[in-house]
């Protein structure tokens, strides 16, 4: 009773295709008096966990603030290489995903299984879109200098373009690559000696945030799987989607802070 395997399927004995949906068969852990208490405890625990996440990012924000205070010019200068349009697009994507996440929890609470699952997958896809934008349109050009032809930032550099690939689908901007953090920074036209520092902060903050997006997506996928296989969530039991949702909102919230701090410095 007290080893892992007995608890690995809290949904009861007959798993697949059982007539009763998983959430109805849910039994709380043996040390809880009621399922409600367990739910409260999980939520409390999760809020505490979110607090630790906030504090983790707080460290980054403090670092950001101090460095920006010390080198304001490097920060405005560095920020000018970020395209606020990609940033805004990503903000919108994440906001939408937050909405679908919340709606999906609601759907499960009302036992609308199908709607819930669709909304969950929508959230996942939004997450994916966010990452795609981040990696293909922001990280890759900055690190290699190769832009996709329809990148809205490209016209700025039209005069500097020095190469094309795949029939003009990709364009190489001279000297734009090399905006790596710290010591790897090798951008030829850097205007500020402290710009490498700005890029360090940029990559650390957005990179760690992206990692959180990935973790959030994994949780969502896991929820989705359980919803499909066991109908695990319903009106009386939805702890895991609820907490995944909380996590996702936090990831969103952190981006809401990062976006103006990184993209909108003037």
């Amino acid at each position, binding site marked *: 009773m007290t080893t892992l395997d007995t608890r690995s399927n809290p949904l009861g004995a007959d798993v697949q295709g059982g007539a009763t949906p998983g959430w109805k068969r849910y039994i709380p852990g043996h*040390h809880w008096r009621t399922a409600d208490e367990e739910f409260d*405890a999980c939520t409390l625990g999760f809020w505490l966990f979110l607090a*630790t996440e906030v504090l*983790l990012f707080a*460290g980054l924000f403090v670092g950001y603030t101090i*460095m920006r205070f010390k080198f304001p010019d490097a920060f405005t200068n560095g920020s000018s290489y970020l395209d606020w349009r990609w940033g805004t697009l990503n903000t919108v994507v994440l906001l939408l995903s937050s909405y679908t996440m919340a709606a999906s929890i609601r759907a499960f609470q009302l036992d609308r299984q199908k709607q819930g699952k669709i909304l969950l997958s929508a959230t996942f896809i939004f997450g994916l879109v966010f990452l795609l934008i981040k990696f293909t349109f922001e990280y890759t050009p900055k690190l290699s200098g190769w832009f996709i032809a329809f990148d809205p930032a490209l016209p700025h550099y039209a005069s500097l373009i020095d190469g094309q690939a795949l029939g003009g689908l990709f364009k190489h901007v001279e000297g734009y690559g090399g905006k790596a953090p710290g*010591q790897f920074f090798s951008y030829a036209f850097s205007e500020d000696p402290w710009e490498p520092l700005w890029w360090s902060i940029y990559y650390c903050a957005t990179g760690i945030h992206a990692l959180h997006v990935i973790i959030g997506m994994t949780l969502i996928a896991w929820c989705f799987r359980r919803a499909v296989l066991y109908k695990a969530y319903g009106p009386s039991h939805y702890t895991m989607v609820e907490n995944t949702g909380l996590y996702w909102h936090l990831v969103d919230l952190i981006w809401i802070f990062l976006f103006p701090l990184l993209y909108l410095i003037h």
Partner: protein
Amino acid sequence: MTTLDNSRAHELGGHGHHEGSYLTPKGGFWTTVWDWATTVDHKKIGVMYLGAVLFMFFLGGLAALAVRTELLDPVRTIQVAATDAAGKPLLDAEGKQVMKTEIVGQTLARWIPPKDEAKLGTVDYGNQLYNRAFTLHGAIMVFMVIIPSIPASLGNFFIPLMLGAKDVAFPRLNLLSWYIYVTGSIFAVCSILIGGVDTGWTFYTPYSTTTDAEHANVVLMVLGAFILGFSSILTGLNFIVTVHKLRAPGMGWFDMPLFIWAMYSTSIIQVLATPVIGITLLLLVFERMFRIGIFDPSLGGDPVLYQHFFWFYSHPVVYVMILPAFGVISEIIPVHSHKKIFGYRAIAFASLGVALVSFLVWGHHMFASSGELGATVFSALTFLVAIPTAVKVFNWIATLYKGSIALTTPMLYALMFLFLFSIGGLTGLPLGALATDLHLHDSYFVVAHFHYVMMGGTIITFVAGLHHWWPKMFGKMYNQFWANVGAWTVFVGFNLTFFTQFFLGTQGMPRRYASYVSEYQTLHIWSTVGSYVLLLGFLIHLFVFIHSLVAGRKAPANPWGGLTLEWEAESPPIEHNFAHEPIVTHGPYDFETTVPPHWNAKDYPLPHLPANAH
């Protein structure tokens, strides 16, 4: 007296009395191993933590002995007669003895010869070994021993029992945090195996980002500490929720044992401070791997920023180390003197108060580097944090008044704690005072201070708690006489080792010195001798415990007459802790009005209460 309302217990459907103890093997050897490896029982996890922590303590202790042995004799060169392979003295053409120069005092270098012949007998090589030894010692003791010691082993085992719960709130998370702990420790051990780390446990930049640049040891060690942080966060989070949600019926916040209060405060600090060190260590790893520059002055970063980040965690963490000890003392003293604790609420609030103020004093580690305004504020707050601690000491001593004091091993240790911790805490005052700290900072005075609080405070209390709860955990008594002999040996050895270091510090001996000018040698010799006595003391304890496990008398359920709920359970407890869910009808320290569980009024006479009592 009853704490068990049997009618209600039945209604709740207790499992009856035939359940075996949690220690009963589940089958053959491998079945049992598997059972332990996958257990979510907080008691087994507590025992697993205990084993891991004691093992790490042993490793850290060995490193400490290496440090002390090296300091026995400072590096110097002497002229010795050269000998040939057969050991005969070599003579030169004129028949005089050939003399050669030899570096002595490098004990570690002689034990661990360098791979590279050219380094043999160089001062640098000996120093490198020493620097690795003290870093290893500090890092192991802090991250792998003292932070998890009381919370993760005794806390895991006893929080649910004391709350009357069947388990912690998230049992699987609990097991996970043990595995994370082991993983982190393995990282650290790997880093030692591939060459060790010479940064000091504080990993100050820019030294830590530049040393051994081409090797991964520092990265591994820092990652290890980072991973251990997660384990600590998860444990703390688990405990907070457990305390909130799993108290037995009838147990209000102020009916909780003070150990629980202490653990609760500790957990708050763990949850709030550890993420900050997490991001700091992560940035340090990035710094080493990518030179991102946040702490690197040549790229515009700031090493002092690192110190701020580091101490923002590491100061609160010293209270993560000491608050659980306070909790244990608050249990031991009332039980072994059959006396209600004095000023329950004051102690409970002092725990919380210390937890909160501890977040505001980190700058006192940086008086020699930070600006005057900051330093002044931090100094003032440092003194503020001493007050709740002083209040607790007064309360414990007041509890002894008109008690019925038995000098059992746990009690003996608790009294030693009062002695040693007071010294440790009081020597924090000249460190907190700005003018004196500028002299004492980074000297052996600091080393002595923190060993008095960490070793004399926490480790001593850990051992005290172990003796207090040993019968409950393993169902066996131990030999009190030899345990007391061990305790006295540790006490003598400890003071010999570390009291001398106060004088070294005020006289100017800097810390982290592989060798020193000869003025300091006498005191260093005493200190080293003391550390061997300490080893002897701990070995005595080790044998007492092994003897107890192998041949100990069976322990009664409540050997000391405690009133907290864990003494209601069997020794060792059954798998679900209690046969019936306990319902709390008396306070944890009502020794004057309650006959403890498993005792009767004849063996445990209650005092005549005066009319105006309570």
